[in-house]
């Protein structure tokens, strides 16, 4: 499909598609079945500057602009949502340090993250604080120059393997974001197994039992941890998850078309049957619409437009639901074959469900996107007659 990309973006897209088909796709089924990432994949990503591809080449990345980063996340999501999850959380922390870190923090972390010497994860969610992160119970208490952090974090993507965590905690001066190293005494990591989707993303529960971290571990000052620091990470996460969901939907569409044109029933390829055609047509429209919304969000991000955050949410919301519907219909078209473990559409179906929950559940987006419509209409109505 023609996306009217700039020549270098179109070139990057072709290269990335080939890279993913060679280096990631052959391992996707294994990541899902074994509930772990094949260690070589992280090494290969880092070696080719693709672990935190938005970082500058001098920092180990590829200097991808938002649009190229989005195209990259679609390709990763098309092949393996577990690897895309790794790139998402690592990128969320790298992006947040790049955006809000002090010069010393950027020096300490960015090149190490870009080159894959350190793997980063976001430790924000708790059992009692998912959508409502203002309720985190983890506390950071000042003690001299240090902070002492106590609490537990749940559903931490890549928690089993990350070297450093961006932890959201409450403090006397408001929410605070802290970089906590894996080897900090008092940090205990418990693997979580048996998830239904993105099974290779190596989730963990983190127990912080009086973890002492230096004051320099704080990203920004207390009070800004949630609305500005973690919000920056989550915005980046919504962007990459949205594109990853486009990849899932694209993968489902490709598999459904291949199967429906190859399989014959009642003397014709099932792609000739009207009700199957309807599914293929609707899937095609939704994949393209989701990708266009993500492209629009990418272009706003590139222009550093203030609407970029809201349009990213909107794109993520649509793409997650498009992936779910595409997974549903792709399994339907595959019949019994699509219900069996080891089938790519069966895995995509489970992975798509996760997209509707992470980085803002469907319902959180449904509550907030209306604000966009209200603000748009207020702006239209405020303009004097004749200027519209």
């Amino acid at each position, binding site marked *: 499909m023609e996306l009217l990309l700039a020549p270098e973006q179109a070139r990057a897209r072709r290269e990335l598609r080939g890279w993913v088909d060679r280096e990631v796709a052959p391992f996707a089924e294994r990541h899902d079945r074994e509930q772990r990432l094949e260690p070589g994949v992280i090494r290969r990503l880092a070696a080719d500057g693709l672990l935190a591809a938005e970082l500058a080449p001098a920092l180990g990345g590829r200097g991808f602009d938002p649009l190229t980063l989005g195209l990259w996340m679609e390709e990763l999501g098309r092949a393996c949502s577990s690897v895309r999850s790794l790139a998402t959380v690592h990128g969320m922390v790298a992006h947040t340090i790049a955006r809000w*870190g002090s010069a010393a923090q950027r020096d300490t972390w960015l090149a190490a993250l870009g080159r894959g010497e350190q793997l980063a994860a976001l430790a924000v969610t708790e059992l009692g604080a998912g959508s409502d992160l203002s309720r985190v119970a983890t506390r950071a208490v000042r003690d001299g120059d240090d902070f002492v952090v106590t609490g537990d974090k749940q559903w931490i993507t890549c928690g089993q393997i990350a070297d450093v965590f961006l932890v959201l905690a409450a403090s006397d001066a408001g929410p605070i974001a802290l970089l906590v190293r894996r080897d900090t005494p008092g940090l205990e990591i418990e693997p979580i197994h048996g998830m239904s989707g993105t099974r290779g993303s190596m989730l963990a529960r983190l127990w912080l039992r009086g973890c002492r971290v230096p004051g320099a571990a704080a990203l920004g000052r207390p009070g800004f941890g949630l609305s*500005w620091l973690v*919000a920056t990470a989550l*915005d980046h996460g919504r962007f990459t998850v949205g594109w990853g969901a486009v990849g899932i939907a694209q993968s489902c569409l490709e598999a459904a078309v291949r199967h429906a044109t190859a399989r014959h029933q009642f003397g014709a390829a099932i792609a000739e049957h009207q009700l199957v055609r309807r599914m293929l047509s609707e899937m095609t429209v939704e994949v393209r619409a989701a990708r266009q919304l993500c492209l629009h969000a990418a272009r706003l991000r590139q222009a*550093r437009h203030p609407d970029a*955050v809201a349009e990213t949410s909107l794109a993520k919301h649509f793409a997650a639901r498009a992936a779910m519907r595409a997974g549903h219909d792709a399994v339907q078209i595959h019949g019994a074959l699509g219900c069996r473990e080891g089938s790519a559409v069966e895995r995509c179906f489970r992975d798509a469900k996760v997209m509707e929950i992470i980085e803002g559940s469907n319902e959180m987006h449904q509550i907030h996107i209306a604000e966009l419509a209200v*603000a748009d209409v207020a702006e239209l109505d405020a303009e004097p007659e004749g200027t519209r």
Partner: protein
Amino acid sequence: MSSRNTLVTFLTRYFPGHALEDDEDIFALGFVNSLFAMKLVGFIESAFEIQIEQADLDIDNFRTVNAMVAFVAGKQAAGGAAARA
């Protein structure tokens, strides 16, 4: 447009039906959520061509229209001085 008017035009979108005063605390109004905070940063950076950094993350820089006007003027003066240096 003055920086004050640019800011007020932007903020009015997010406080519909409220005539915002220049010295009114927008955080005390209760409309400010994390999406708004990020939009505000993005808007100020793009409208006034400045870069907001970690050291600028102080609620007092963003609390009122007057505070934001002063903050932007300070950043622009510092940026201009840096460009001339």
